């Protein structure tokens, strides 16, 4: 292991704690606090990974997670970034995207073919001929993709956390810390987030021992700890900012859903690469990366370095490097006027060779292209190009690039901010921001440490004022003085075309020129065609150089060219953080436990669970369902219909309101009687059906379908307002349980349990009575949904199980069976009753559904009436009919929604179907063309295997068309 630098307060490592780990099968040792990249660099390992397309050798570039040179997997997690992955004992790491290991990597042959892989190659090469695409796809999937998923991995459950604060500050650099500490003095809850393991930001690595940095660091890190209303979260990324200040925080173990009232975004800048030949090889890196290596990890970044600078930061870097014992071969300054501050003098005092007005033409590679051995340096001409007539060779092992910055703008864009280019700084600056979003620090164009602190205070006080806790003065923003910290065009062409703009996707300068030549002259189009910024780092190092290139190709300013916006996530978020428990609330009826205890097969019906059927020993599902139906026909059955929507409509306008909601008439309905009702929407489509019960002159009780109940109730509430009806609506769907006792024995069974006189004359069909059942107050309605004598019994939910059990006990001697949804569907199908939403769809009008009889005549108004009247005049396109099957021994049997054919033409579809009915033959309900709706018309139903099943149109109801069953008792049957 190479020696580390002398310990210093800014270091993140603990040199007393060595940590052994493995990389690509070789053992190394680092220290606690090291990230993988720093530990490898300290071990002299600079070749870290292979690039995505050409499989070129890459090494640490940003040391801040802004590049993917070192993208690794540990056997359990993939796509880990080596410059953010803290090592721990036993870590066994492999690089992704290689075939046969990092060193050999057989895929590196792709680079030999790079001339054949121009920009847009995939789009042009693989879409024709079409029949070859499956082959291409297989090969692509083999080659593409980063990392392997371990399917045998154990599942890591990731908790979801919630938090809220008044002010969120993102970035714990000088301005972020100053903002958070300032705001915390004003009786607000403040949260400060930083992705690094320690606070301080650039104070910790950019010239950290100078007085302003040291003072700010010691003051604010101390104050962070002292403020009780300030929560600092290190090692946490803000993955995205969403509507109304909803913010996703991601750390190693959880996702936190944070709601804040205001935000200070002190997210800083990304240092940017310069574009020159071989600018991607291991040994070429950002100046800030070298500083991070030195000041966070005590690693000497180079032996002999060439520094390419275009700002004061580059000169400061040189002084830093000299301090760490690095020999400076040359300081190359792109600017023609050099460094205006005294840093120039200080650098020259250290006898550094300074070339002003020069640029790097090429990083000269060592054999094998896995490291560099020097730099070719040329003067910059009047047009900003390199003049290759003069070439200065400088031997070095490292080239450090310090040519400029772009704001870390992702969150600012997501929060609704917009940017404009400021040529004083050669940088984008926020131009418009929402009222509750504030930007400070380097992202706001403020570069000196004291100014950053003041800018943080300014942003904080503005935020506190927005939050209503401050009305004092707010410091102004200090304008930047001196030369811009960023070079306007640090991009140089080279005939060998290995001058990369985007390291994720291996896109070089000529790719942009070619794309532009093909007409991709808009930033959004160029991005998609070249895929710049679409790799794992989302263009942190490439987007803005791409914009600069396009602006130059178009001969436009940056503002005219425009920038691409930034969507979440800031960095990739592990899927485990996003995956969560499935919150799927289910409503259970009061009788649910009884059903389960009695072998019910439960099913979902909308948001409710209902018995589908009850399992019986030795009986198949179909036999059990048929058995339940037969029991209802011959004896008596009981079904839980508690999921029915149940609504009280009361008040002076109750009758008039219902006349406006339903198509039928209710004003003259007798008290104690029920009527069937259909409700339409404004387009005349049936949206609901149910019974309307008149309990008193001004008091109605209506039911709605299980799945439509809440939507129907909502609609009633709105219409009551819009039509200005004096009614009170009470949704008692969950307050009341309901059960339907049906079958010839139902009257005899029920009479002993109730004080209501059930005799046919006193309580006829479609009558409704209120009374007691099993000692519980109940509403009883004689409905005919399943086609037998029956009573729907509505009781308070708390008493529903008691009544149910009483009926079951009493029913024993009548061979009672509980029946489920399937048997009910069969029984009502035999009776020809439709189910809204099952036999009707979102286009079905009352004429098609054959329920035009339920439309009241000469009504002044009901919802959808105008449409219904228009439809009445139009020819019918389809109608609901019964279908009877003559045989049931086809190998494939029709299912709901299968199409119906006549003479090879599609003429309808099945809506409901039962292969086994109590009638002894299969029946169905179907939409059919009206011309074919005549009884006995033969049609064919197309089933699986391209076969046809023959059916015959039948009159409905199939069963008891004259409703005689409603008054037949068990005794009369016998």
């Amino acid at each position, binding site marked *: 292991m190479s020696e580390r630098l002398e310990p210093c307060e800014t270091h993140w490592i603990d040199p007393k704690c060595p940590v052994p780990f493995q990389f690509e099968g070789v053992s190394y040792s680092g220290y606690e606090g090291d990230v993988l990249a720093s530990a490898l660099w300290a071990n002299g390992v600079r070749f870290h990974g292979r690039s995505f397309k050409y499989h070129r050798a890459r090494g640490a570039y940003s040391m801040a997670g802004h590049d993917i040179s070192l993208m690794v997997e540990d056997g359990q997690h993939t796509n880990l970034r080596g410059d953010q992955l803290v090592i721990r004992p036993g870590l066994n790491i492999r690089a992704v995207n290689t075939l046969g290991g990092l060193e050999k990597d057989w895929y590196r042959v792709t680079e030999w073919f790079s001339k054949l892989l121009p920009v847009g190659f995939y789009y042009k090469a693989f879409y024709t001929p079409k029949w070859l695409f499956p082959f291409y796809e297989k090969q692509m999937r083999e080659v593409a993709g980063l990392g392997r998923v371990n399917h045998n991995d154990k599942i890591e459950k990731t908790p979801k956390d919630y938090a809220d604060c008044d002010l969120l500050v993102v970035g714990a650099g000088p301005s972020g810390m100053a903002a958070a500490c300032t705001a915390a003095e004003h009786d607000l809850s403040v949260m400060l987030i930083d992705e690094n393991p320690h606070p301080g930001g650039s104070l910790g690595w950019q010239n950290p021992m100078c007085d302003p940095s040291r003072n700010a660091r010691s003051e604010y890190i101390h104050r962070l700890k002292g403020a009780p209303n300030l929560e600092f979260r290190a090692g946490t990324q803000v993955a995205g900012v969403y509507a*109304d200040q*909803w913010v996703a925080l991601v750390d190693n173990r959880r996702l936190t859903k944070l709601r804040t009232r205001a935000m200070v975004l002190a997210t800083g800048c990304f240092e940017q690469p310069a574009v020159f030949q071989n600018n991607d090889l291991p040994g070429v890196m950002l100046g800030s990366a070298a500083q991070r290596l030195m000041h966070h990890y005590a690693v000497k970044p180079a032996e002999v370095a060439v520094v390419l600078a275009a700002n004061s930061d580059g000169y400061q870097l040189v002084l830093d490097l000299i301090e760490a014992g690095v020999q400076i071969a040359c300081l190359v300054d792109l600017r023609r006027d050099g460094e205006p501050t005294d840093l120039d003098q200080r650098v020259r005092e250290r006898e550094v060779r300074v070339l002003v007005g020069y640029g790097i033409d090429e990083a000269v590679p060592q054999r094998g292209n896995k490291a560099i051995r020097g730099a070719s340096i040329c003067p910059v001409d009047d047009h900003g190009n390199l003049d290759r007539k003069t070439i200065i060779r400088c031997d070095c092992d490292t080239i450090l690039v310090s040519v400029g910055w772009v704001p870390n703008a992702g969150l600012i864009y997501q929060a609704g901010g917009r940017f404009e280019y400021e040529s004083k700084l050669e940088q984008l600056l926020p131009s418009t921001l929402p009222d509750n979003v504030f930007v400070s620090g380097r992202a706001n164009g403020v570069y000196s440490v004291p100014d950053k602190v003041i800018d943080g205070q300014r942003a904080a006080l503005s935020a506190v004022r927005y939050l209503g806790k401050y009305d004092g003065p707010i410091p102004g923003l200090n304008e930047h003085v001196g030369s811009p910290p960023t070079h306007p065009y640090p991009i140089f062409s080279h005939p060998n075309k290995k001058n990369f703009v985007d390291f994720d996707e291996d896109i070089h300068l000529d790719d942009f020129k070619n794309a532009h030549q093909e007409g991709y002259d808009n930033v959004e189009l160029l991005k998609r065609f070249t895929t710049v910024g679409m790799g794992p780092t989302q263009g942190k190092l490439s987007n803005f150089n791409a914009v600069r290139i396009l602006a130059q190709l178009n001969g436009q300013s940056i503002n005219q060219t425009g920038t691409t916006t930034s969507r979440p996530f800031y960095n990739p978020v592990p899927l485990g953080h996003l995956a969560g428990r499935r919150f799927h609330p289910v409503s259970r009826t009061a009788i649910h436990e009884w059903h389960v205890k009695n072998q019910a097969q439960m099913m979902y019906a909308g948001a409710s669970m209902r018995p589908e059927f009850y399992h019986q020993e030795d009986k198949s599902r179909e036999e059990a369902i048929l058995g339940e139906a037969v029991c209802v026909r011959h004896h008596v059955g009981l079904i839980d219909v508690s999921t029915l929507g149940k609504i009280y409509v009361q008040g002076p306008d109750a009758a008039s309101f219902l006349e406006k909601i339903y198509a039928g008439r209710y004003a003259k309905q007798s008290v104690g009687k029920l009527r069937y009702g259909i409700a339409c929407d*404004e*387009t005349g489509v049936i949206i609901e059906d149910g019974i309307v019960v008149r309990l008193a002159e001004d008091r109605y009780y209506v039911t709605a379908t299980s799945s439509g109940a809440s939507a129907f109730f*909502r609609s009633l509430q*709105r219409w009551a*307002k*819009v039509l*200005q009806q004096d009614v009170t609506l009470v949704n008692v769907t969950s307050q009341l349980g309901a059960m339907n006792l049906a079958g010839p024995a139902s009257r005899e069974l029920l009479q002993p349990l109730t004080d209501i006189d059930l005799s046919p004359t006193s309580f006829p069909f479609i009558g409704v009575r209120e009374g007691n059942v099993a000692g519980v107050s109940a509403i009883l309605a004689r409905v005919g949904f399943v086609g037998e004598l029956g009573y729907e019994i509505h009781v308070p939910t708390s008493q529903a199980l008691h009544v149910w059990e009483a009926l079951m006990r009493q029913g024993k001697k009548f061979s009672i069976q509980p029946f489920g949804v399937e048997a009910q569907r069969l029984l009502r199908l035999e009776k020809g009753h439709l189910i809204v939403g099952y036999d009707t769809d979102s286009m079905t009008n009352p004429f098609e559904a054959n329920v035009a009889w339920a439309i009241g005549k000469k009504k002044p108004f009901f919802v959808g009436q*105008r449409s219904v009247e228009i439809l009445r005049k139009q020819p019918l396109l389809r109608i609901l009919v019964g279908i009877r099957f003559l045989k049931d021994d086809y190998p494939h049997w029709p299912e709901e929604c299968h199409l119906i054919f006549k003479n090879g033409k599609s003429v309808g579809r099945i809506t409901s179907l039962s292969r086994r009915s109590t009638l002894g033959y299969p029946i169905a309900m179907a939409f059919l063309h009206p011309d074919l709706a005549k009884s006995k018309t033969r049609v064919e139903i197309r089933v699986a295997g391209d076969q046809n099943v023959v059916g015959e149109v039948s009159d409905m109801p199939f069963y008891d068309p004259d409703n005689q069953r409603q008054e037949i008792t068990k005794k009369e049957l016998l």
Partner: protein
Amino acid sequence: MKILTCPINGPRPIQEFHFGGSFRPLPDLDDMTDDQWADYVFNRNGEPGVKTEWWYHTASGVWFLADRNNETDEVVRTYLYQPESTDV
């Protein structure tokens, strides 16, 4: 995640609400052709700008109107339906 302000219950998370479509005053049925009626029933104006929409607070059953800019998704105001004040 958005927050919507119910005129009765105050600001609440958007999951508590149900969108009820754009607000359209009931037309005068006696004074319109079938074509006008069909236009009222089927056509909606999607052009960018401030739209009046129906929203429903599910937990409390409150229907109200929201003036929302469908371009910026900014809710300008929310208020209870008043037949006389919203007639256009």
